[in-house]
């Protein structure tokens, strides 16, 4: 069952920045339980404290139906037990059992790439893959990528280049882009396009993806910059007394330095 953090709406008055988004997805991943504590019958909703009881319940109440199975997914670096019916796809499992909604349901037929996740280093379509097939496979979702500080640069490039409009398909593109950079840290525009050929964006953001990926690749290939000095009035740095975000209000940034 989805955890509280994932159920909580992302709306309200939350502020979304690279940092808050990173923290949020990290919390979502941390909150996913590693082992099952309740065993709910998907057919009638009754809950049991042990799997054996659920099996007995099936034998008595639903003898014609297939008993749900427990599988262990290696998800975003963490082993997670889930109870699912054997015909469940990974996309359904991620959303309805683990509270991860980054792999989107769009086409349901393996055409659009919106549900893309990485399995043992390879992009797969979560809407076309049964979850039971993935035991022992290292799965990485967009949440896992976003929680890894290494990929902040890619996410930032995506946001600054508006490589999204409505944003529904964006996570599928981003996962595919990450998989591309894993195997090819300096892709050309043509290589980006080829890698993303299986992702459909109805809003038509296509040209922006290669730009964002190549910019991120360039930045990631360079040594990290030393922390930049804050603008005047910034006594104590970000969040400090009088600095940007502090009680004194907005501080100035040096010309040309992005926020």
């Amino acid at each position, binding site marked *: 069952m989805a955890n509280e953090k994932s*159920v909580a709406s992302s709306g309200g008055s939350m502020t979304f920045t690279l940092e808050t988004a990173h923290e949020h997805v990290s919390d979502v991943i941390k909150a996913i339980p590693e082992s099952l504590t309740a065993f709910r019958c998907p057919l009638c909703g009754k809950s049991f404290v042990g799997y054996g009881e659920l099996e007995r319940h099936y034998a008595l109440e639903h003898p014609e139906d297939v008993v749900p199975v427990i599988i262990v997914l290696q998800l975003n670096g963490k082993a997670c037990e889930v109870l699912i019916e054997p015909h469940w796809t990974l996309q359904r499992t991620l959303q309805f059992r683990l509270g991860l909604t980054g792999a989107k349901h*769009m086409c349901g037929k393996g055409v659009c790439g919106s549900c893309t996740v990485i399995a043992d280093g390879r992009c797969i379509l979560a809407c076309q893959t049964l979850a039971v097939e993935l035991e022992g496979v290292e799965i990485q979702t967009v*949440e896992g990528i976003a929680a890894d500080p290494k990929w902040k640069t890619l996410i*930032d490039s995506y946001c600054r280049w508006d490589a999204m409009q409505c*944003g529904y398909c964006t996570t599928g593109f981003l996962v595919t882009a990450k998989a591309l950079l894993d195997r090819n840290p300096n892709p050309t525009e043509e290589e980006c396009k*080829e890698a993303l050929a299986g992702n459909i964006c109805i*809003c038509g953001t296509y040209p*922006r993806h290669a730009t964002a990926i190549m910019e991120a690749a360039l930045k990631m290939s360079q040594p990290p910059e030393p922390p930049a000095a804050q603008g005047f009035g910034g006594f104590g740095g970000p969040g400090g*007394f009088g600095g940007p975000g502090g009680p004194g209000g*907005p501080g100035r940034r040096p010309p040309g330095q992005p926020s």
Partner: protein
Amino acid sequence: MADLVGVNGQREDFRVVGKPNLPGKLSYALATGIAKFGADYVLPDMLHAKFLRSPYPNCKIKSIDVSKAWKIPGVVDILTWEDPDLVKLGSGGFGGPPTLWIDNIAEQENAELGVIVTAENEDICEKAFKAMDIEWEILPFLVDVRTAYANNDDYPVIQQKSAAPSMFAAAPSKPKQGNVSYADTVQGDVDAVFAETDADHIIEYEVDLPTFASHIPNVVGSIAWLEDSVYQGEGKNLHIEGAVQRRDSVGRMHGFSAEKTIQEGLFQGGKYCDWGMRKSQEITPLLAKRTGRPVRCVDTREETFGFLMNERFIHMKIAFTDEGLITAIDDFSVADGGTSDNSSFGTANDQGYGPYVTTKCLNIRQHMEIVDSNRGKMYLSGQHCPFNWDSLTVGLYIIAEKLGKDPIDIAKLNLHGPSSQEDTEEVLSFETCIEYGKKMMNWDWHPSGTRTLPDGRKHGAAFRYQICPRHAFSGYDCKLELRSGVVHLPTQGPCTGIYAVECNAMVVAEELGLEYEDIQIDFDYREKFTPVGGGSDGSTASSWAMKECANILKAKILEAAIDQIKNPPAPSMFGGFGGFGGPPQADPFEGVESADELDLVDGMVCLKSDHTKGKRLGQAVSANIFATYSGRPPAAIWSVGMGKMLDTMNTAYCEVAVDEETGEVEILRFGVVADPGKVLRPTSLESQLDQVMYFSQGCQLLEEYVFDDRSGLFLNNNMIDYKKPGMMDVPPVEHGLMETRSGNAAYGASGISHSMANTHLVIIAIHNAIGVWVQPPATPDKILRALGKG
């Protein structure tokens, strides 16, 4: 530049507005998977609901027995259309008889009808439908509009419901007959021109506008639950997600006031002007009430494949002089009217949008015969509206071909001036776009079939113009707050992908001497302000109002600064201003008496006479300050003249290569030169231009609704068989953004909504390449047939 009203409308120095690569305020949520769309919500103990869907294109449930379905484990609730709870949801009807919210009738395949099942999961819902004994009355259907139209006298009447009259549609010239109703818009005397000798030339041609799927990216639906909240008072509150922007109306429908209807989500996916609500977005509150549990109801992809555009078959007749000046336009069209609740934007209402009246021609007749069908429903509008831009564009091209002239010259000759159809002055925006566009495209016109590329393929080019209409019909209630030194912009959002909130934040930052990042946008569904308005930079009407609000806030800030100078706050425990532990600094405001002596520049309240002397905003003003403004910019020319007056315009270009051996078409490049008046947010504006060009590519080369004539079933309502352009399909789109400042909104901006998508730009370029017409989608087999090779 137009005579722009409003504070700083004539501003010349822009620090923030027009700046590229500023991240959207919700972009990080979208990119990381945090963003939740309606279908994403999952709650503990949640139930799932599904509608029975029609297996036939036109049918009625004669009788139904759901008793076996009730026995299936996991079925929690079954509602049929006669249940009082559903009957109560019906409406009084707009000018017509009361309508049921759902009944036992379906006028298209896959339409919701008759029964709603709520169960532990969706699989059980489907199982329950299969267990029901349903006696269907299968009725005659109509999916081939042209054949049915030709046989209207003999064709059975297919519409089972009485359609509500549209408040917008053109007046019918005669009563409905059979499946066909009528709409006419007439100006001048077309017949007289054709009968007499005013015309040196008369041409007639066909333009087929294809059906186009709305294909909203996210699967549509909602989840609702009832909850207690001390903040909303006694009694249960309705929490609904997935009905963004319609929270109030859905709440009211189920007896909840706006105060007791809660929504937090901001993300509603791409709309493309399809603002119609699906039943799955409206029903969950009732189901949650009945079951006492959260209920989720989400359509499948196949069920979310509505129209964005009804098909239309236009026969055009145009008279023109030897110079190419059009003297009469006669547009006779047969339009798919869809099901009984189809939007009139797809048919009669589209006539009022007036592309023809952008010409000097005073004799114009549009006669539309609208055929009811069982093909589907257009929910509201689409980015291709108005449709008859394309019939005019084709006409200008044919005139050019006939006279051996450049179609751009024919368009220039025919376009009227800024103030009326009789005005012969040039339109600055049009001229600016054309001048830039010709250079950008290396425009070198050639007659059809006369240019061969080095690889043997035929080269073709096409051009079109359009206006940049605006959305300034409604007013805006703006609010800004300075709190703890930070400027807050409260808004209900939502996020539709057009970055409209961001445009407003940029304008506020511009006016307050701040940076974009300094404006804190507080998304809250209860807020009044929503930056509606057509597409990226189409938020200019709302940002005009927000500009006024920002200047009210600015005046209040400077007054408060004076107040603080005169009544300084008590020193804090950290000592005097100027730093913790450091020596006291000179007061930059010493001797300042009036707010007129101050300004707000670069995040500082400073001396107007010396911007280097001042204090940061948060230090200069510690008070909380609100500013509000309700209003709108002066009415847009578009809304006044509907094409008879012209200000901001745009042009689009296309070059193709056609292989006459294979029939394959390659779009070599698209070009778009648009004048949104003033560019507010260039990154998203360019992206939106790309989008509409890809929409155009899709409907002209790839996308096609396919029905089985024998069963009336829609055969390709899925993303495998209905082909949308992908990464490897799309051509380069070159942009030119002009800034004539001739719009009516913020800084003379106007936006670009409804202004670029088209159905025949590529089709014209194909004709220019090979000299034969192919109606969209121009697939290789059609091209080969047109060339006599099929």
